[in-house]
């Protein structure tokens, strides 16, 4: 948290211009890129950034490691989807419903879990999220249970009679995702430069000290959780409408909660752009491993013969072990970059600057 004035001068101005250029490019991207797979990856990255950044507000800034964030993601996904599918409420209204439900759930979970600290809070957050998964699985009349909900039709978005989009391509989802990402990053930036941000970080650093400095732990932890939950539900709603199918084992599962935490840990916890980096690393990595892109690349480039033992290992075995490789890579990154990719790059540049001086 440096004074703003320093950021506007010199290096900061350069960064601001670069940032605006990136945003402009991202807005123009669908005009040049027709490849739906590329857009699909971008949308997945956007969803990951939104959920990572939302978690970051609670985990990174306030230091409360919730491993139950799938609850809020699921609340967004289920509310939006149920309203759309069973009540014919279009998703751009449903999203608000999702936010309200996520907020209510956050207040309930917060009032229970924040009585606990550290590892006990983590365990409680997992347990409470599991309650929601099991409930969604068993309340068949409301949620369709394990069958999940399939979106049959998304109503076209019209403003005053003119058709804006009918959601037939990936482009509207791309723009929605991009707007959500910009919104979440703006919220993070505003928080970092406000009293709330200072209080969140004080609680992260030492909650007893923070308490003695006039910070109400109950109030500010719940505020952090509420903001985080509402923003996470945005990611859930977008995911549900985009993929068109949700069930308890995808949107309310423990792996999703872990995935959300990983995005932040890999990118760099408690920084604005950490979750962005984390999503940019993790989403393409998991996609490449899932589709066995790396193995195919090695074989097609001629580095490995397809009929050799190693080649057949790549095509036969490795493609089935993508989760294992993903896990190993994540462990390696955490071992060698404990502050995330962003922290690693910062220490590297600092070291180089020292050597140059």
């Amino acid at each position, binding site marked *: 948290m440096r004074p703003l004035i320093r950021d506007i001068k010199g290096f900061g101005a350069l960064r601001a211009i670069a940032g605006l250029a990136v945003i402009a490019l991202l807005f123009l991207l669908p005009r040049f890129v027709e490849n739906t797979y590329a857009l699909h990856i971008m949308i997945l990255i956007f969803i990951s950034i939104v959920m990572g950044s939302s978690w970051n507000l609670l985990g990174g800034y306030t230091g409360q490691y919730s491993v139950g964030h799938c609850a809020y993601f699921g609340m967004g996904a289920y509310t939006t989807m149920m309203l759309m599918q069973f009540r014919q409420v279009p998703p751009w209204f449903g999203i608000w419903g999702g936010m309200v439900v996520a907020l209510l759930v956050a207040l309930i979970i917060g009032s229970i879990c924040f009585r606990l600290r550290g590892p006990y809070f983590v365990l409680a957050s997992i347990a409470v999220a599991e309650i929601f998964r099991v409930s969604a699985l068993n309340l068949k009349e409301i949620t369709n249970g394990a069958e999940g909900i399939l979106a049959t039709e998304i109503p076209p978005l019209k403003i005053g009679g003119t058709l804006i989009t009918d959601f037939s391509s990936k482009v509207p989802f791309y723009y929605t995702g991009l707007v959500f990402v910009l919104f979440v990053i703006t919220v993070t930036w505003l928080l970092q430069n406000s*009293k709330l941000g200072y209080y969140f970080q*004080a609680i992260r650093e030492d909650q007893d000290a*923070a308490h003695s400095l006039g*910070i109400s732990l109950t109030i500010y932890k719940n505020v952090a959780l509420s903001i985080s939950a509402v923003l996470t539900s945005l990611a859930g709603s977008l995911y549900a409408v985009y993929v068109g199918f949700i069930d308890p084992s995808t949107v309310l599962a423990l792996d999703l909660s872990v995935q959300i935490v990983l995005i932040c840990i890999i990118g760099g916890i408690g920084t604005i752009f950490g979750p962005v980096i984390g999503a940019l690393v993790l989403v393409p990595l998991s996609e490449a491993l899932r589709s066995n892109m790396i193995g195919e690349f090695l074989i097609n480039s001629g580095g490995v013969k397809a009929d050799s033992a190693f080649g057949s290992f790549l095509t036969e075995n490795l493609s089935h072990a993508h989760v294992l490789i993903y896990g190993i890579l994540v462990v390696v990154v955490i071992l060698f970059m404990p502050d995330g990719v962003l922290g690693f790059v910062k220490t590297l540049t600092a070291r180089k600057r020292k050597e140059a001086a």
Partner: protein
Amino acid sequence: MAILEIKHVSKFFGGLSANSDVSFEMQQGMIMGLIGPNGAGKTTLFNCITGYYPPSKGDIIFDGRSMHGLQPDKVCKLGMARTWQKVRPLAKMSVVDNVMVGALCRTNSLKKARSMAMEQIKVVGLEHRSDFLAGGLPIGERKKLEVARVLATQPKMLLLDEVMGGLNPAESEEIIQLILAIKKLGITQMVIEHDMKAIMRISDRIVVLNSGEKLAEGSPQEVVSNPDVVTAYLGSE
């Protein structure tokens, strides 16, 4: 009128009594020394006064108001601030940000909080460190940072828990001067300290605790000549 009245405060942890029936009063602007052997219940008393533990019995009246059931953040807002025996810097935040967190207790504007923080940083003499991370400071400067941070909450009363612990004589002297300077600002202080020479110099009155009970109270001279106190510290013949 007394600014702080401790009325028959007892604190039990299970069967163990950490404080039993401690009573004393403090007048506005004075420095009260709180001494006693290890385990005498000094820090427990601090925790009871500042809302970390509810006293098992008795009451604490601060500024004419009972502190019963108040959380530490409310206690701080009412104008009573404490430091910690084991310093608690907000390690990954800069020195000025640390002090700003204290100042934000009184204002919502970051700009105002920053100028209030810089003022207190000057009072303790850490201007040259204001942009450093608090976690990187040596112990002497961390102790000063603690004091600056609580001063920024604009307290009427300060409770300092062993601010000189672990410091060399030169650093201790700086803290003594700081405590005397704070007294000149009209802030009432209660000081826990093991360094007898220092506590004799700064205190207006001293309360001695032993095994959770108040053993003696009086001016520094009265306390050192009290045979019970000598026995508690040095053992009897």
